[in-house]
């Protein structure tokens, strides 16, 4: 009995690697600390009522962002481990299998569990405020989306210490990801972690589409909508069309592995190339899903910090919509070299290059907005400025890659790695950082001090170029991606060494950011932010920071693109809006179902990962019961009485 238990444990837990034992200990200590602290300060009830069961879009947004930053840390540690391994030839820090696992989890985590939730966090915190709404269209569904994402991410992360990590790359190409080549549970973790969080992403896309279509403030016509909201709208359209493709693709891969189907296998008629087509039909739009909201953030920041209307509003809107359309016609550029033929390659090369046009339009619009503006150099603006050259270079190397014949040369080299990191870090990460700094006071009610923020900014940026410029060179010299070691005779080591230094500089930049936030939290009482700390232009700045749970005491109007700016101008001239009477506000009630239902999804996912059908059925049954419970519950909302609104407003406005 004991023997069998031991045997099970050695398969169940990942053993034999000191790094992982270290992680086991770290996870154990963190868990124990969290539990102790919560118990000691009697905070369990608070946690449950205020966070785990909340349907407030602002709190959900904050939870998304916290989760995403933790994942940035995890993905970043993975990146540093890889860079350490590659710093010198013949390093023996990560063995090849382990290296495969690390680049797989790094890529998956960064895109699906860092960039996506960061983006959803910003959606949640800002979109309802920008359009003058009290909430999102489906608050319950919103909470459910968050918890599905979160528990999906946890399931994926668990693979590190239980069962073993996936190692077939972040897109899991078959046959590598098939049972024949990956018999362990790692791939199953990949499938279920992404599947569960992916359902949440699709729901968020639908939720925000309806929110934006139906809940805009009176007077806010389509062409009066703030730019960030436009970017969210175009992103959600892509999500709506792209995510179901991912869902099916992963489901088919799972059926291959679990039920013995032959969609992508090498035998009995399967077709691995079909997987590659499908995954990129989601994968390429996915890249635009994560970058478009960053474009929205930049548009808001450029106009606020130049104190000018955004230049070319309409062209900006059309550029976004065109990008979301074109993003579906470029997927094959990811496999120019796989024999689709010259005509097909040419078509996809052209569509890929076409995307550069609307993107260029946007960059010119930002530049023209800044031209003759009264520019202020606060941290959000600095990240925006840093993004522009970074994205131009990244975009140009991208166009190089989209030339099909050239791609035969660069394909799968470090040139490609440098290109996509330049776009993803320069565009996505810088963009979300800018957004976080910009909206921080609105989210938390206090302002971060800029000094550490500027240190963070410079180390990140210098680190970035030190890390990735050498990679272009080493790529041209022939170094291929997913290489776990190389010899002295290749002549690559100096460049790799420099690159590793740059990676660690970015790590230092991250630490500066953590320090900046910790410092802000420590001193938050002295750093109180007003409702409108940046002299903003859109509606979210018209209410106190942090926003009260009902957002707007009276429904605002949205007649102008920069409504709040115009309002301030009018007030300066002594024209005040008519006083509106307060009315009771209709609010959704908290619910524990989203959290519980997601836990059941987690249980089901875990069961499927290990092939324990009883557990999967148990989990799915739980999911079903939660759905029925929700369908049968009619007591889901309440009203905030006028008195309470008056009190809240008085205390919030009194302090600013």
């Amino acid at each position, binding site marked *: 009995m004991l023997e069998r238990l031991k045997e099970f444990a050695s398969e169940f837990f990942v053993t034999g690697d000191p790094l992982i034992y270290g992680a086991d200990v770290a996870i154990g200590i963190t868990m124990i600390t969290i539990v102790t602290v919560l118990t000691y300060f009697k905070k369990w009830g608070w946690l449950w009522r205020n966070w785990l069961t909340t349907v407030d879009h602002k709190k959900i947004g904050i939870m998304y962002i916290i989760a995403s930053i933790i994942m940035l840390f995890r993905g970043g540690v993975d990146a540093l481990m890889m860079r350490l391994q590659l710093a010198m030839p013949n390093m023996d820090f990560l063995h090849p299998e382990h290296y495969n696992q690390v680049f797989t989890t790094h890529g998956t985590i960064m895109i699906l569990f860092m960039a996506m939730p960061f983006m959803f966090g910003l959606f949640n915190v800002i979109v309802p405020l920008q359009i003058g*709404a*009290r*909430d999102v*269209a*489906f608050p319950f569904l919103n909470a459910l989306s968050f918890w599905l994402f979160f528990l999906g991410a946890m399931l994926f992360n668990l693979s590190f210490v239980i069962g073993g990590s996936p190692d077939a790359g972040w897109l899991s190409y078959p046959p590598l990801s098939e049972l024949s080549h990956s018999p362990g549970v790692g791939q199953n973790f990949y499938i279920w972690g992404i599947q569960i969080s992916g359902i949440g992403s*699709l729901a968020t*896309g*639908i*939720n925000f*589409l*309806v929110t934006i*279509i*139906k*809940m*805009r403030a*009176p*007077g*806010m*016509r*389509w062409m009066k909508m703030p730019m960030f909201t436009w970017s969210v709208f175009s992103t959600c359209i892509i999500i*709506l*069309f792209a*995510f*179901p*493709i991912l*869902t*099916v*693709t992963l489901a*088919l891969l799972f*059926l291959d592995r679990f*039920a*013995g*189907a*032959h*969609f992508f*296998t090498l*035998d*009995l*008629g*399967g*077709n691995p190339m*079909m997987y590659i087509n*499908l995954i990129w039909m989601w994968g390429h739009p996915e890249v635009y899903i994560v970058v478009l909201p960053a474009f929205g953030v930049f548009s808001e920041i450029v106009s606020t910090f130049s104190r000018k209307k955004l230049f070319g509003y309409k062209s900006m809107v059309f550029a976004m919509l065109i990008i979301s359309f074109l993003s579906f016609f470029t997927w094959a550029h990811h496999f120019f070299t796989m024999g689709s033929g010259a005509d097909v390659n040419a078509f996809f090369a052209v569509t890929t290059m076409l995307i550069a046009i609307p993107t260029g339009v946007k960059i010119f619009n930002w530049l023209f907005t800044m031209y003759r503006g009264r520019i202020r150099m606060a941290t959000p603006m600095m990240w925006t400025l840093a993004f522009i050259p970074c994205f131009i270079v990244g975009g140009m190397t991208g166009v190089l890659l989209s030339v099909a014949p050239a791609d035969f040369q660069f394909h799968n080299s470090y040139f490609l790695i440098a290109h996509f990191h330049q776009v993803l870090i320069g565009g996505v990460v810088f963009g979300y950082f800018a957004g976080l700094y910009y909206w921080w006071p609105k989210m938390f009610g206090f302002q971060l001090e800029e000094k550490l923020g500027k240190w963070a900014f410079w180390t990140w940026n210098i680190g970035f170029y030190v890390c990735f410029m050498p990679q272009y060179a080493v790529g041209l010299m022939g170094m291929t991606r997913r290489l776990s070691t190389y010899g002295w005779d290749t002549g690559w080591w100096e460049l790799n060494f420099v690159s590793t230094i740059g990676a660690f500089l970015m790590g230092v930049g991250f630490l500066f950011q953590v320090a900046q936030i910790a410092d802000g939290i420590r001193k938050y009482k002295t750093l109180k932010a007003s409702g409108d700390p940046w002299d903003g232009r859109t509606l979210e700045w018209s209410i106190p920071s942090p926003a009260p749970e*009902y957002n707007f005491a009276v*429904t605002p109007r949205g007649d102008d693109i920069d409504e709040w700016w115009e309002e301030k101008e009018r007030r300066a001239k002594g024209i005040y809006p008519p006083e509106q*009477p307060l*009315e*009771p*506000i*209709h609010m959704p009630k908290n619910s524990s179902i989203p959290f519980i239902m997601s836990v059941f999804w987690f249980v089901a996912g875990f069961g499927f990962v290990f092939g324990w059908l009883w557990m999967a059925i148990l989990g799915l049954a739980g999911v*079903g019961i939660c759905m*029925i419970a929700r*369908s*049968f519950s*009619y007591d889901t909302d309440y*009203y905030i009485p006028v008195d309470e609104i008056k009190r809240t407003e008085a205390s919030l406005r009194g302090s600013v």
Partner: protein
Amino acid sequence: MAQAAAKHGENHAHGHDHGHHDPQEMKILGFWFFLISDVILFSVLFATFIVLRDNSAGGPILSELIKMPGVIAETFILLTSSFTSGLAVLAMNQGKVKQLINWLIVTAVLGASFIALEVYEFVEMVHEGFSYTTSAASGAFFTLVGTHGLHVSLGLIWMIGLMFQLKKRGITDVTRGKINVISLYWHFLDVVWIFLLSIVYLMGVM
């Protein structure tokens, strides 16, 4: 949209606006978006089926296993159920709860017979050596048709749940919204079936 905004302004002027944005209307719109995502889901399954349908790897071939009479019966049953679900909505609009529930029961019974026939058909195919794991073609067939069947089955559970709610609460704004949504869903499944009929079955035997 300008229209909706105008309507909203009107609400506002009347002072009835508590941040309400007609929840039922929003639910229907949200459901339409969900249906779009479901269309994509089925499109991908159709595409894989079309790519793989001839890859039978030496095993039985789908077109030789299809029994048209069964398929036609299924089609007839499902189309009828779509019609009766329409009658249910008509009854609802006239405020007749009893009739509404009765039509829903008829719809559910038809849906269940559809599923039963489909399962029977699947079992027959498996007996003839065309099982899920036989070949790429068989897997693609069962996954595509089975996903539709799964949708119908979930719709059935949902519909039964709604009958209980109707019994308890009668026709209210909320229950009306729910019935509208499920009838939309039911019609949608009908449309998907028409595609299955033409692409999988009719083109299969021709």
